């Protein structure tokens, strides 16, 4: 993991040319193989149009969530050049907070006659509050995470905070297990936003369900991405963040409070992870203390795919990864269990031809 974390960074120079040729040939062979599988799968028409549509919707939903989590990785990497491996756990904290908010709202009865609870009486307010509280709690967690686990190691070699990050991840996971128990919890959604239901759309002679929660997740993700883009590009804090990312020492000389900016960067990334956690619970219903691990790894992959340190890159990487996971096995005609193999093969391929990720080059030009 450390390898892939480091290699896309523009600072690493790739050695000798002969190595490059082997790489390219290997990559070409892989691409040709995939193209051949793709062609044969599409010409034989193994899967119906409705199945492709279902894969696309599930890939888009998952991809949108990966993108939001990936943004957090990329932001922190941008300013600190470190991978915050505890990011997935921050997301888990958000998911649990949202769950508790819903549980509390569902416990307050407004109308005893119909047993109407706050959750169902004010569903929109409840969902918005769940997002806001989830984001706030995750934000606070990320703030303390940075204070306790990373700030004391600011001057240390790059490997040290990485190890500390893994330690923090294990700590948070176990803390959650102690607090909430190892039992799986199930999100209690408001009645207007049921799990696993949606608008039926007839595609290819069969109805494909566009889920309510999936649609909500995609919309919220887009809002968050736009919001973050504006924050980074148009505000004073954003400018300070970009300056710190560019050069910490010079930024400090220009009167920027570097530690403060780093702290706020962590808080923003925490808030994003919290929102992703609430979306996760709303959409997938099941939450458990280890839920942050897999999406954390996937989102990290997405961030690297898109070009780590690059905000639009994380968005593109997330959606791309989600789509590849859902559509890849079908396109190549292999077992669905191998979806992760395809996802990580794509990572390898992208890194072979674009070592700094899909949009990584843009960042370099900007920086230059």
């Amino acid at each position, binding site marked *: 993991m450390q390898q892939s974390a480091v290699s896309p960074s523009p600072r690493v120079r790739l050695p000798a040319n002969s190595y490059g040729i082997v790489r390219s040939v290997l990559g070409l062979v892989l691409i040709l193989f995939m193209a051949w599988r793709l062609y044969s799968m599409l010409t034989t028409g*193994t*899967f*119906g149009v*409705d*199945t492709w549509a*279902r*894969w696309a919707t*599930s*890939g888009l939903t*998952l991809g949108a969530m990966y993108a939001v989590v990936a943004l957090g990785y990329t932001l922190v990497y941008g300013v600190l050049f470190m991978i915050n491996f505890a990011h997935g756990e921050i997301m888990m904290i958000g998911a649990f907070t949202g769950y508790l908010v819903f549980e509390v709202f569902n416990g307050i009865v407004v109308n005893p006659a119909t047993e109407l609870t706050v959750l169902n009486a004010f569903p929109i307010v409840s969902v918005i509050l769940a997002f806001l509280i989830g984001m706030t709690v995750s934000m606070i967690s990320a703030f303390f995470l940075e204070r306790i686990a990373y700030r004391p190691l600011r001057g240390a070699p790059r490997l040290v905070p990485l190890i500390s990050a893994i330690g923090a991840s294990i700590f948070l996971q176990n803390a959650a297990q102690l607090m909430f128990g190892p*039992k*799986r919890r*199930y999100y209690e959604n408001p009645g207007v936003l049921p*799990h*696993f*239901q*949606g608008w039926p759309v007839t595609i290819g002679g*069969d109805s*494909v*369900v566009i*889920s309510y929660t999936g649609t909500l997740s995609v919309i919220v993700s887009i809002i968050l991405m736009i919001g973050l883009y504006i924050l980074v590009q148009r505000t004073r804090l954003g400018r300070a963040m970009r300056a710190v990312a560019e050069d910490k020492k010079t930024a400090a000389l220009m009167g920027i409070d570097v530690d403060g900016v780093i702290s706020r960067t962590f808080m923003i990334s925490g808030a994003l992870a919290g929102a992703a956690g609430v979306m*996760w619970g709303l959409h*997938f*219903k*099941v939450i*458990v203390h*280890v*839920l942050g691990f*897999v*999406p954390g790894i996937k989102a990290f992959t997405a961030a690297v795919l898109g070009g780590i340190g690059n905000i639009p890159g994380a968005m593109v990487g997330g959606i791309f990864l989600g789509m590849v*996971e*859902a559509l890849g*096995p*079908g396109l190549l005609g292999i*077992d*669905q*269990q191998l*979806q*992760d193999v395809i996802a990580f093969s794509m990572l390898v391929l992208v890194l072979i031809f674009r070592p700094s990720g899909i949009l990584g080059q843009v960042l370099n030009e900007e920086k230059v």
Partner: protein
Amino acid sequence: MLKKRNMSLLALLILAAIMLVACGGAAGGTATEEVEGGDQGGAEGGEPAECAGDDFGCAVIEPGQTIKIGMGAPMTGDYAAFGVDISQGGEIAVQDAGEFNGFTFELVAEDDEGSGEGGAAVANRLVADPTVVAIAGHIFSGATEAAIPTYEERGIPMLSPSATNPPLTQMGSKVFNRVAFTDAVQGKFAAEYLYNTLGIRRLAVMHDGEAYGQGLAEVVAEEFGTLGGEVVATEAITPGESDYSAALAAVADADPEGLYYGGYVAEAVVLVNQMDSAGLEDVAFFGCDGTFGADFLEGTDQNGEGAYGTSLIPPSSPEKDAFDQAYEEQFGDPPGTLSPFTWNGYDSVAALIYAIEQVAILGDDGNLYIPRGALVAAVRGLTDYQGLGGTITCDETGECNATGPTFYVVQDGEWVSVNEAG
């Protein structure tokens, strides 16, 4: 240097001396006991002829002693719940058995921690007691495997309530039998139920790629094909994820009538929840004993209605209700809270008691003689014995569960056994 070596030599000598003394004492003690026992039997002439003809001789239970049934079970540690629960089920079987020719039974549950070493150690401890005539165990497959040779040597029959590892009955052991059904048996019964009872002809099979789930799913697929059905899709999923909608959509593309899943409840919940939106609206979900439980109901809510599960828990019967009541009165919790094996624990001990009563001979001297070789044959020869979980009939390899698992279906948010389902 020399001095040091001398010192350590001395220490070694002292240690050796202590060990010699200890061993000698123990050996002497056993020897005298044996001689005494032999004297009594011979002098009073109470020993029946069956004992002389038996390969392993007789276990002699003197008046005032109990007929002991041993059990090797994890009574401490991570898996203590299994050992405690199964031995509690066995305890009730002992109470139900009451007196036999003036003798009572006793269940001796020793802690083997579920491990191989523990299993061997417990087996050696149990065979050292001449009044232990049969073993209701062991509980875990690993411990069982390690214990079998010791019992084999002494001619002590075993009837395990829960050791499900298939090879255990394939090793040619004369003493090992089990009432637990193996995954192979479960898969066979599940395939038959899907094909014959539910009338499903196009089946999709999914599993989590783990030994248990995949093994089960493969058996079901094979048996289902043998019956004449068609397995239209096979998908493996990665356990522990929150989204299996892509795999389900691939399954839906094959247009199955039923979906069999081999794996555990966490993944089953996700699958069942996402089935409808993945295009499997009218497809029956059929789970295994890994997906059965209250957690499944809580996690699937409305989506779980009509899903099938498999369990060791026997369907309701007057005997089962009486057991449940006795269990709850004595141990506080309703049976099934600690493990799903407690009914098997009862059946295992009760069937052993039944076999012992078949072969035991009351001697003229008032001692109870139990020919060990005959008991081994009697346990292997159990036929149509009615236990809580169904009929117990041992085949020539020692598989004694003739009924198979009980199938359950979710109705109005409850698991209902299919016999009682409306």
